[in-house]
């Protein structure tokens, strides 16, 4: 009899311990992918390329819901897109103390750092681990990494670059000069590899390439154009190096982008549909509207791209259907939001001109028209850019018209109109602001070298819309286009505006971090403030 109890006890143990064997399965998230599963059809490797492409300017699909959009908003839209002069914001976050009034919010700049640096870095590391050293994979991953990290250094200055990716808890920073030098070296290497593969007709992971569907030749064009853009950026800091790489890019056998079809963008591709972030910000959040600077330039020049870029202002249904817009050449009313205001979020500003951006509008990394303007600027400095300043400039304008679906016939009259930007003013239910036209520059490329530079920059700025990150960098580098100053300078930055973002507080966490950042600040050559100029911000 007694033995029976022992049996019962043992059986009990057995029954109870059987399910324990499943621990590994229980502990595995069934709604996610294990490494083994990710090997099927090369998903982890290919998916890492797609993940890098998504990170160049963060974009997501419908599946991401609002997550990526919100990240884009705080990483780019409330900083570069505003400081670059494209948008005004119908909101006064943190009671008006926020990036749009030069008061930098840590959570936002930390998002900028994360979404330019980290977002590309993790998949880049995966590619290095999983690619079996296939040269074109490494090369393409370098091009993508530089596409993303050039934004980080342009935002902050020194970044960890050369040692990044090594197994280190504290990675030393590199000066911006070193970072750029490395960019060029790495780009050159990558371009050489990709050129060879392009010549052999090799396609790179077309299933996971949302930009060029595996077309290696197009990647070379993009990489050359990127090299040109980066070279131009350091024109005032290191003219020789700038010239070397600008000319190398343009003179490359495959060369830079020349046609609208060359442009690099994230829209529909590789079977995915990427959603334009700005659409939600404008239409659902009602926060992103035409800036007063855009208003002055587009309405002043009677720019045919006006209606391609912005929608007419709407009626204010709460105030007798009034429309606060200004009548433009196209017989429609447009209005922009005053730059750097601290007014409460309101339904007045909400009625102002929304960006004419749809959900399916691609997010552009670089448009071919930008490349013409880069070449025009290079030619203006006497570099060999495969064309003269005027023709490159005018080609840029006409290509931009083409890119925006505007008839070529309108180009000449646009260039020769003699129109100037106009004054900005609103008088709406107690919101009264005026701002003079930022400049009297016309479109026609005349005047001295500086006047020409301004016009090239203005036209590039208009053509690049809404790539705020690039606009802000080029505005800092050249001082063009001239933009309206903030109404309330909550960050006390004065006329110079925001020259960089200070490092997020997370960079100062541990004692080791603090030592590390001290080194970075030495390289920066100034205080960790938004007023400190970057290395390439050296125009006299």
């Amino acid at each position, binding site marked *: 009899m007694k033995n029976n109890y022992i049996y019962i006890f043992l059986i*009990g143990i057995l029954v109870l311990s059987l*399910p324990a064997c499943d621990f590994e399965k229980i502990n595995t998230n069934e709604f996610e992918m294990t490494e083994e599963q990710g090997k099927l059809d090369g998903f982890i490797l290919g*998916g890492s390329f797609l993940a890098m492409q998504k990170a160049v300017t963060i974009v997501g699909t419908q599946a991401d819901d609002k997550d990526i959009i919100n990240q884009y908003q705080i990483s780019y839209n409330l900083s570069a897109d505003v400081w670059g002069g494209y948008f005004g914001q119908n*909101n006064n976050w*943190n*009671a008006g103390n926020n990036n749009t009034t030069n*008061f930098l919010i*840590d959570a936002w700049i930390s998002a900028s750092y994360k979404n330019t640096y980290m977002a590309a870095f*993790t998949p880049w590391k995966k590619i290095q681990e999983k690619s079996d050293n296939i040269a074109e994979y490494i090369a393409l991953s370098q091009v993508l990494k530089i596409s993303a990290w050039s934004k980080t250094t342009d935002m902050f200055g020194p970044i960890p670059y050369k040692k990044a990716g090594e197994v*280190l808890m504290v990675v030393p920073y590199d000066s911006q000069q070193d970072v750029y030098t490395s960019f060029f070296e790495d780009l050159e290497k990558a371009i050489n590899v990709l050129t060879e593969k392009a010549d052999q007709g090799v396609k790179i992971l077309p299933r996971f390439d949302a930009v060029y569907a595996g077309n290696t030749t197009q990647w070379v064009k993009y990489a050359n154009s990127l090299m040109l853009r980066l070279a131009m950026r350091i024109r005032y800091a290191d003219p020789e190096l700038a010239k070397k790489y600008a000319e190398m890019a343009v003179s490359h056998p495959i060369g830079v982008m020349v046609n609208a079809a060359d442009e690099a963008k994230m829209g529909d591709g590789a079977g995915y549909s990427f959603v334009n972030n700005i659409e939600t910000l404008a239409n659902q959040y009602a926060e992103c509207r035409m800036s007063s600077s855009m208003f002055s330039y587009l309405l002043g020049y009677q720019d045919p791209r006006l209606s391609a870029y912005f929608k007419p202002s709407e009626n204010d249904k709460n105030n007798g259907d009034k429309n606060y817009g200004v009548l433009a050449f196209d017989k429609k009313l447009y209005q922009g939001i005053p730059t750097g205001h601290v007014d409460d979020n309101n339904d007045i500003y909400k009625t102002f001109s929304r960006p004419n951006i749809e959900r399916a509008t691609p997010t552009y990394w670089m448009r071919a028209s930008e490349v013409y303007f880069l070449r025009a600027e290079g030619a203006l400095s006497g570099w060999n850019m495969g064309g003269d300043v005027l023709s490159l400039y005018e080609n840029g304008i006409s290509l931009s018209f083409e890119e925006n679906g505007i008839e070529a016939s309108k180009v000449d009259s646009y260039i020769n109109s003699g129109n100037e930007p106009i004054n900005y003013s609103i008088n709406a239910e107690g919101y009264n602001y005026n701002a003079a036209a930022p400049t009297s520059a016309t479109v026609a490329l005349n005047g001295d070298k500086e006047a020409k530079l301004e016009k090239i920059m203005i036209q590039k700025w208009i053509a690049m819309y809404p790539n705020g990150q690039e606009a802000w960098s080029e505005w800092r580098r050249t001082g063009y286009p001239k933009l309206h100053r903030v109404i309330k300078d909550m960050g006390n930055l004065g006329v110079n505006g925001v020259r960089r973002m200070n490092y997020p507080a997370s960079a100062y966490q541990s004692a080791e971090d603090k030592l590390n950042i001290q080194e970075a600040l030495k390289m920066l050559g100034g205080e960790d403030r938004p007023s400190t100029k970057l290395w390439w911000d050296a125009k006299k």
Partner: protein
Amino acid sequence: MKNKVFSNRILLKSENLKHLFRIMKLLNLFLFVAIFSLSATNTYSQNEKVYLNKKGVKLEEVLSEIESQTNYLFIYDDQVKVDQKVSVNAQGEATSSVLDYLFVDTNIRYRMQGTHILLTKQDEAAFVYSTKQVPTRPIRGTVIDKQGGAIIGVSVAIKGTTRGVMTDIDGKYTIEVKESDIIEFSYVGFKSKEVKISNQNTIDIVLEENDVLLSDVVVTALGIKREEKALSYNVQQITQDELVRVKDANFVNALSGKVAGVTINKSGSGIGGASRVVIRGAKSLEGDNNVLYVVDGIPLFNTNMGSTDSGVLGEGRAGSEGIADFNPEDIESLSILSGPSAAALYGSNAAQGVILITTKKGAEGKLQVTFSSSSEFSQPLMLPKFQNRYGNRDGMFDRWGNKLEVPGSYNPRDDFFNTGTNFINSLTLTTGSKHNQTFASLASTNAEGIVPNNSYDRLNFTIRNSSSFFNDKLKLDLGASYIKQTDRNMVSQGLYWNPIVSAYLFPRGENFEAIKTFERYDQSRKFATQYWPLAEGTFGTQNPYWTAYRNPMETKKNRYMFNAGLTYEILDWLSLAGRYRLDHTYADIDRKIYASSSEKFAKEYGNYEYSNYKSNQEYADFLVNINKYISDFSIVANLGLSYSNHWAMERGAKGNLLGQTNGFYLNNIDPKDLSVIEKGGDQAIRNFALFASMELGWRSMLYLTLTGREEWSSRLVNTNEESFFYPSVGLSGVVSEMVNLPSFISYLKVRGSYTQVGSPISRSGFTPGTITEKVLGGIYYPSTIYPFTGDFKAERTYSHEFGLNLRLLKSKININATWYKSNTKNQTFIGNLPESSGYEFAYLQAGNIENKGWEISLGYNDKFGDFSLSSSLAYTKNTNVIKEMVKDYIHPLSPEPLRIDQVVKDKGRTILKVGGSISDVYASQFLKKDHQGYVEIKEDGSFGLETGEPVCLGRTTPDFTLGWNNSFSYKGFGLSFLINGRFGGIVTSSTQAILDRFGVSEASADARDNGGFMIPNQGSVDAEKYYKIIGSGEAGTAGYYTYSATNVRLQELSLSYTFPTSLFDNIINNLTLSFIANNPWMIYCKAPHDPELTPSTSTYGQGNDYFMQPSLKSFGFGVKVKF
């Protein structure tokens, strides 16, 4: 002899004399007899009373004790064996009875002569004293309580004598009786019972509880009742009366202030919301630190459907919690084990303390039906102070306007909030025969919140059957419950989906009546669209009624629970038990956003979100129970195995509608706008454990408890420590039984225990072989978390506690005090890695969080004729300190040992660092100061903010809390009230900040009346500018909106009358009517909101009000009838 020397009794004046006598006795016994017999008088009757409680001591000791209490003197010679061991328990018995009992089975006889008692060996003819030798026979039986539970330690005594025994662990006893004896059963806290012996051989007794229950027997781990004196840790017990006197839809709230050591924060989402219950402080940095609930010995995963927090933006979805589903009428009693001592039996989750719930069982006897009903009506307890003197600028929501010619009359309290209602009805039924008892209950809770269209409804159905077979050796316990619960618009805080935002901010120059018609027919669209002429952007404000009625969010939950338990008694000291419990929840969750809502929430044709939630928990255990007395020792041991398995998941879809306007079904969602909801893949956990506990008792006065548990958790699979062991040791001694204490001390117990608990991390999927990465929309999201290395271990809490339980003046006064200290080490940190490492986070294990404090409860119970009173104070003090962060941690990413000095939580609101606490709150934005420290006011009168070093504002936890619970009764009338006080700590208010910014607060009107806001020592600045700068409601500027959280309130009040049974011809046994008030009066509070409200049950995000629903005061009536 020692006790004579040190005894302080007045009667012992002849102490030395007695001693002398004894020496002389040895010289000539007979001479003494001769002399002293002459002086014998009746002064010393044989009834002089003695108080004795001795077990297994030498007879000599008992005799000298009697001598010390009386004037008697024992005289005996060497032949009388006074070194034999005896036990005696006499409470005011006549000395003769005591002696009868003492000598009954010995060869000693006594004879009382005056103050002398002569002891002789039986065979000495000269001193023969013969007791009447009546034949005896044994009687056996079991003593149980009304719920069928065995009562341990009941005194079973022959009336008029001191002969008696006690019941054992199963309530069993055997006693030798003579014919016509009367057996008296008595036990503290129960009404005594007498049974006259006729010719029966077994007598089973059901004892009824006294009105005032003393916590002599408590329900402890595994649902076993234990003698309180055996416990080495603090256990506090609460009766069901305390839970149901003033009912709350979530009964957990009724515990507040009634037990020491427990901090309860009520949900800001209104009726039925999830409460945050923390015992002895937050211990884990990454866990939620809430208490573990155990129902009938089985741990319960307190599911809350993913979230209890609607977030600052309202992005989340607040809900109820699993424990709130329970019907308080089904609960028999509730014990709170505030220390982690029960962890050996319940596992890791018990590290945060345990609330043990014992549910009712059927009882033997005729059918008894109880019906109870309560109706409560509620209103906001406290609201922010609003103004009505200044309007807005015409038609504009957010602009400050001029002083109104006629002050407005809008007041959210009267114009927006409804009277909330809560109707709770319950019916319970119990019946049973000797071998089969059944309990059934049905209860409904129907509540409407004060916010329009906010409701909580619940139906509970429970049935339980207990039966026994094979001479009661096999016991089967079966139970099943079904719960159907629906809630609508439970919002705990936040900007969106929260109608109170626009109700509070409503511009004071506008007409609120007009917007009450919140939708108006649109001729062109053919349906009624939102009427809201006052749109405002930042907060996505909508017409508050539209938000309530046309953005409804509903959860419909069905929950089934089934449990079975089988116990088999092999020997009277050995039993086997197996139990199983299944708990399954299924819920449909949806949110419908009607067309014409703010574009933030829906596009033109509306928006729909639907998901279903499933959770499953299974628990099984198998136990070997040993209860054995071996001479002076008792052993209670449990050896067990347990298995638990839990998973929860949610799946659904959401998106803007296309096609049919307001067509709320998934097929009507724009396919280009559809996103998937798929959560819970990381929730599964399976656990397997072997555990043992042993309690060793010595003479019912000294107890040693040892426990140990070896646990295998799925969350540690493939690590170097796949299983972990944790032990505990405890010692408890009943001092009052060991030494003589002054008579006013009825009971004194001291106890101490040391416990370790291990707990695996709170999420699955971080260990080697189980790491997964996200795929979303078919796109790969490489993980940014540094993968775990194998040395991952469970967190460990090391705790010890010391306490005493003291009862004074015949147990009228009860004192229970505990000091404890716990250190939780090997904390799991989510450390931020520098972005340049290629990873965002790494999980590290280091650190040390210390909690220490006091739990003291003080009770007083007394009776004066028909009047009885009971009063208790519960004092709780906990101090939480971070003793160590990450220090010298070896991580593969770092060549140097790693150090992390601080970790930022809750978006910078909390900073964890050494010396701080887990609930510190920081602010980092301040008015910009000039070099002299004054606010920098520029020439144009403007001033601004600057970001500075974070400044600690305080902690959101109290320094201490005090609850004072009282009840009085007089002939059927009952009055009870509970006053709760919380002292120390801070809260912050984003609500107040935003009200100031919108110019609708009284403070903003005052500033305008005074011509501006007065900055101390600097003069006044424009009020609108000032409030628009600091009134962001963000955590950064919380320094300007920090308040003391100290508050004192009347928490419960009830007045009842129980009609005499005779009034209803004994058909109705018990009819009680009561008036009840829940939270009726805030006596002291300087914060603009109720500091005890919380938007969330998680560790961070406490202590800020971001448009939480106000707490409620409610008044109502209750009826209870028994048939």
